[in-house]
């Protein structure tokens, strides 16, 4: 197996003045190159913490994780779009490039190409407050893609959107990821979204989160996330995962 990321025995405890919160407990996981893996777990179970650790923002308490490539570029997309309201869409999209001093002509062209591919070229000089939630989410994704990441970490990428936009944008994002061929690790609490988008779904228990189950998702006639919801195996997976999560309520 060609694994891009191997996580082994990662734990995370938060120490506050009052108590010690055990957020993640002994997680071991492999992410295959080019695949989409979704981690589902109830909210507050430690999903964001895990992504923060992988993105290098937070420290783990114990365990290790390794990437198969050296110096991997990690694209981390946060729970909110976090666009800067005082910058234009284009300026937002190249923010990562500017911070990392990679704002070469070639890379900027790449961002412009991404913006026009994903139907945002008319909005390049607009400001974030003039865009819909789904469009903002796409800009946030392009800002992440601009760095040409080896792996994408998406933290509940659609949770801020209404149901209709969610369905549409998950198709968009899926197509973008697949087209650019990027290994992706998503965390979510939405079971349907997880099944419809991923090759593999990992179910976490309540806090401290441990791995409860791993499902390889095999849908007949696998297409886009929206159409995948119609696959005949979909409900079966849904019920199983729902039960896995429910037991711990």
């Amino acid at each position, binding site marked *: 197996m060609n694994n891009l990321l191997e996580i082994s025995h990662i734990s995370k405890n938060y120490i506050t003045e009052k108590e010690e919160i055990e957020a993640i407990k002994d997680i071991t996981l492999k992410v295959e190159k080019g695949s989409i893996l979704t981690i589902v777990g109830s909210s507050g179970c430690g999903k964001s913490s895990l992504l923060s650790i992988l993105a290098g*923002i937070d420290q783990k308490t114990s365990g290790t994780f390794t990437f198969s490539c050296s110096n991997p570029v990690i694209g*981390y997309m*946060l729970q909110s779009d*976090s666009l*800067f309201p*005082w910058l234009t869409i284009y300026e937002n999209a190249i923010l990562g490039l500017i*911070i990392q001093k990679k704002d070469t002509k070639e890379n900027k062209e790449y961002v412009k190409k991404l913006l026009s591919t994903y139907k945002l070229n008319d909005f390049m000089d607009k400001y974030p407050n003039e865009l819909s939630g789904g469009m903002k989410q796409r800009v946030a994704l392009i800002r992440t893609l601009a760095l040409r990441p080896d792996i994408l970490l998406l933290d509940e990428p659609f949770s801020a959107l209404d149901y209709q936009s969610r369905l549409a944008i998950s198709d968009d994002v899926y197509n973008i990821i697949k087209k650019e061929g990027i290994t992706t690790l998503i965390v979510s609490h939405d079971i349907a979204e997880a099944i419809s988008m991923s090759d593999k779904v990992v179910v976490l228990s309540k806090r401290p989160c441990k791995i409860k189950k791993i499902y390889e998702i095999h849908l007949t006639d696998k297409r886009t996330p929206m159409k995948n919801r119609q696959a005949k195996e979909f409900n079966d997976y849904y019920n199983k995962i729902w039960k896995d999560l429910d037991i711990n309520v």
Partner: protein
Amino acid sequence: MSSESLQIIKKKKRTKRRILISQILIVILFFCFWEFLSNKKIINPFIFSSPSKIWNTIFSLALTGELWGHILTTLYETILAFGIGITLGFIIAILLYELPILAKIIDPFLTMLNSLPKVALGPMILIWTGANTKSIIVMALLINLIVSIMNIYNGFLGVDPMKLKLLQSFKATKYQILKYLIIPESMRTIISSLKINISMTLIGVIMGEFLVSKKGIGYLIIYGTQVFNLTLVMSGILILIILSFLIYECVSYIEKKLSKNR
């Protein structure tokens, strides 16, 4: 635009005009009434003066050129103290933000200093810095600096943690985080604190002038009191009201301009 919306706009304009006319009327009536009471000796004209006397005083001060010197002095001191206060406040707020330990250590002292009526320090400042413009500036800084440090610092603390995380995920340096996020995001708070700041500064400057100066509107007022010329005192107050109103409007205008560009 439909005729109905035009009607509504017209109505709104009319209301606005009515408010303005009422305001002007109130001022005129106030001065007329005052003049009348003073003229008929219903109130003691020596203590309460009268608009005509005040007007004559201001007019003759303006003719001799003395008036402009006083106004310019106060204006100069205010702008200087305002500029220094904002700049120092900004620098100190950045220091506190970058060194949270320092912020925690000096927090109670800042609060104490903030709640202290600064005028109590006046006589001491006078002795330390000498009776000159310096002590007026120091007095004004005492009043505006803490407020501006706290406003700017709180603006920094109010920055969205998600945006901070985003920049950290880009491996941004501390300087980059300041430049690309902290400063632009807190600009709005900083700009909106300018108005409070200018009022504070003016209070400080007038207080300073009361204590030491030989020029300025504060001096005019205190001098008038000393020679028991209440017409002069009220002239000074009237000029001060107009001046502070104009300064405030200027800062409001700047604030509007700045926040429009954001």
